């Protein structure tokens, strides 16, 4: 039940991400490479959707990127720390889909997962 819920949220996020990316990249220049696209997601995309940028972007330059948001908007209203940790994944599923949909429309196939160890920060 919980799993189906998360999957549904993620796929809704996917479709929304596709549309959002189309609108956001309508007036931007052509992207140079994958890193360029990831920077766009971390800065412009995140700012337009969550009113702040990603705090930290790390990559192994082999296709894995870790985006860290220290004050994730959808988690800030829950208690800081570990109290409602088990409920956090629901709130992250849609956003994972958002990123996956956005990347997909830009030609990048991806798997997007989220990890929360201490709210409201998440990766």
């Amino acid at each position, binding site marked *: 039940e919980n799993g189906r819920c998360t999957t549904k949220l993620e796929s809704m996020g996917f479709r929304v991400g596709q549309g959002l990316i189309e609108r956001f990249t309508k007036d931007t220049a052509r992207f140079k490479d994958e890193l360029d696209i990831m920077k766009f997601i971390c800065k412009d995309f995140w700012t337009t959707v969550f009113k702040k940028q990603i705090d930290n972007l790390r990559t192994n330059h082999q296709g894995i990127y870790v985006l860290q948001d220290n004050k994730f908007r959808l988690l800030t209203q829950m208690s800081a720390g570990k109290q409602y940790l088990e409920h956090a994944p629901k709130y992250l599923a849609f956003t994972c889909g958002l990123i996956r949909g956005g990347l997909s*429309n830009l030609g990048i196939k991806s798997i997007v997962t989220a990890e929360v160890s201490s709210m409201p920060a998440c990766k």
Partner: protein
Amino acid sequence: VPGSVVCCSSQNYPLYIRSVPTENELKFHYTVHTSLDVVDEKISAMGKALVDQRELYLGLLYPTEDYKGYGYVTNSKVKFVMVVDSSNTALRDNEIRSMFRKLHNSYTDIMCNPFYNPGDRIHSRAFDNMVNSMMMQVN
């Protein structure tokens, strides 16, 4: 004065085709196809960093004696191709650019329509109306 507008997905299948009929239908379609080939060439050239192309507008792709093809590729790899009659010399570059902008804007609206499934043929009255008004402008 005949003209044609084609919108192609990133996988190169057509999402939207509109042509004002012409006596030489075959030659017309030929120009559309070769224009799409030129678009693909330009895109792969960009990928290998042979051409630095930050703009989405590709410009004149394929001038034949009868027709001229223009191209535009979005960041989401959707291709727009416009073919106009070569005798239409009144059409300026910035007019073509603005027509592609209109196409891109309308396509974005379609993408944001939750009832539209990406990759499907485009069946939209708003889109049709926009293309109609564009073709009347060309003629």
